[in-house]
């Protein structure tokens, strides 16, 4: 897997990460599950699953094709092997592909989505539809690339899923009429869309911490089951194109079909950002590894904001900077880059709305964590604690005055009192 690892690249001044030129980030299972759940809430389970599967197919097709070229995997069996190794290495579980150019079957074990859904929600609710659309899309993409099939010519359906209390996950793949591939979103098209670089408060400190975290993540890979357990969460190396395509397809659908619900959809995608910051950033901040590298949180709100920006950069979310901070009053986060806006510009062009819901929710959550968590008392980041922090009246609101999708040169998020 060192061969794949060697194909990582970074735009250092922008803190955006790529694998064989395809943008990737790290997200935890809490975020992944909430994100997918929101897609299904918006579209219904059937259409939601379809949109998620297609988005995964599109994103991973780009990656598997690029890797196959770079690593000279020329035959179907080489490409399929590369794909299955990649899937596990990225922390998505284990996928066994029994396919040919007409389709076939895939068997999944310890799939990131289904497995973590069962761990998190399985005792509380029953699920009626499968959870592993990403694995389905991946299997379809791998089959298309392996046999040099046109884009969209393999359809994959999850027929059994452990989240449905089946014994294992199984997918059926079949040949269908191809659909045109969407516009590629890779480093070569993203880089020109990024704004001029700038710094913010505590820039040197943030950079040093982010570099340390990024260096650590280079050594992180799926275990023998293809899962990555780190910082108390299941981490996945994932393609931002998947997140973006699903989010924006949903938002556009809602804006067309149910415009009065557009605010609600955006609120839930912001909520997903809050979930990410609380669970991923929070668990990193309280980990022994963080204590060794940076020191355990002292309780200073400014320190939490600095550390959070560093974590964001380390995870590939972009060059988050603290432009302005007045304790309890205002927090202005600016970034020349994030993983949402360039995708939107590339696929859809300009918009009259700001489009960075994940970043908005994250910034709000950073302010809540900075001011409402007693870090020095070693808090337990449980679901009940999350609910107590984010339920009811939060004394701040978040808005996005600047967004590259509207032609601005940067993203600006302002968190201020209600």
């Amino acid at each position, binding site marked *: 897997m060192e061969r794949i690892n060697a194909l990582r690249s970074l735009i250092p001044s922008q803190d955006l990460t790529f694998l064989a030129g395809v943008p990737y980030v790290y997200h935890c299972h809490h975020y992944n599950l909430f994100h997918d759940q929101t897609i299904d809430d918006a579209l219904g389970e059937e259409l939601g699953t379809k949109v998620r599967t297609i988005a995964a197919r599109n994103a991973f097709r780009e990656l598997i094709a690029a890797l196959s070229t770079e690593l000279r995997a020329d035959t179907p069996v080489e490409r399929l092997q590369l794909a299955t190794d990649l899937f596990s290495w990225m922390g998505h579980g284990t996928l066994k592909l029994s396919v040919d150019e007409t389709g076939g079957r895939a068997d999944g074990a310890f799939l990131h989505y289904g497995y973590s859904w069962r761990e998190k929600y399985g005792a509380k609710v029953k699920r009626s539809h499968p959870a592993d659309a990403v694995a389905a899309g991946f299997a379809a993409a791998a089959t298309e690339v392996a046999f040099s099939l046109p884009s969209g010519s393999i359809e994959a359906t999850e027929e059994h899923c452990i989240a449905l209390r089946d014994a294992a996950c199984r997918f059926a793949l079949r040949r269908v009429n191809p659909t045109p591939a969407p516009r590629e979103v890779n480093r070569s098209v993203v880089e020109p869309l990024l704004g001029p670089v700038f710094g913010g408060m505590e820039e040197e400190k943030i950079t040093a911490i982010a570099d340390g975290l990024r260096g*650590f993540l280079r050594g992180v890979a799926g275990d023998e089951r293809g899962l990555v357990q780190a910082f108390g969460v299941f981490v996945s190396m994932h393609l931002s194109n998947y997140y973006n395509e699903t989010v924006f397809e949903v938002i556009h659908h809602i804006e067309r079909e149910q415009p009065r619900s557009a605010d609600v959809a955006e609120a839930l995608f912001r909520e997903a950002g809050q979930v990410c910051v609380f669970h991923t950033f929070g668990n990193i901040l309280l980990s022994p590894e963080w204590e060794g590298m940076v020191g355990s949180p002292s309780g200073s709100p400014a320190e939490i904001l600095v550390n959070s920006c560093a974590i964001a950069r380390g995870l590939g979310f972009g060059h988050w900077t603290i432009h302005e901070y007045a304790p309890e009053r205002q927090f202005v986060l600016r970034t020349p880059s994030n993983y949402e806006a360039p995708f939107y510009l590339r696929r859809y062009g300009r918009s009259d709305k700001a489009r960075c819901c994940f970043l908005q929710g994250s910034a709000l959550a950073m302010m809540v964590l900075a001011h409402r968590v007693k870090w020095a008392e070693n*808090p337990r*980041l449980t679901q009940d604690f999350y609910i107590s922090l984010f339920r009811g009246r939060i004394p701040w609101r978040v808005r996005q005055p600047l967004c590259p999708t509207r032609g601005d040169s940067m993203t600006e998020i302002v968190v201020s009192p209600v």
Partner: protein
Amino acid sequence: MELTRDIACFRSLTWRCDLPPGSDCDVLAQRLSRAGYQRAPSLPGSVVLRSAEGHEIVLVPRTLRAGIRVHYMTEEPARRFTAERVFVTLVKGVLGRILGSGPGDQQGVARSVRLPH
């Protein structure tokens, strides 16, 4: 040394304790390697050791914090017991009582390890 629960999103997977003042984490890591714990990737400033079963011990030399992470495949009812077994191994390492520790290690114990009352 006292084993306590740490924060974790899955029940009973993450535990912590504090090493005695003066503990030498490099020596401790060497002793734990004789108990089957091998070094794994970590952030600068900490040492992560992983057993063949996938359980981890994280040592923070600067603050002498130690974390214990039980592998996620451990059945929930067994997690506490597993954490305690890992903790016992850690304590034995601190005391220089892991099998294979040479006489030099035993002499080192009296100077470098002081257990809290």
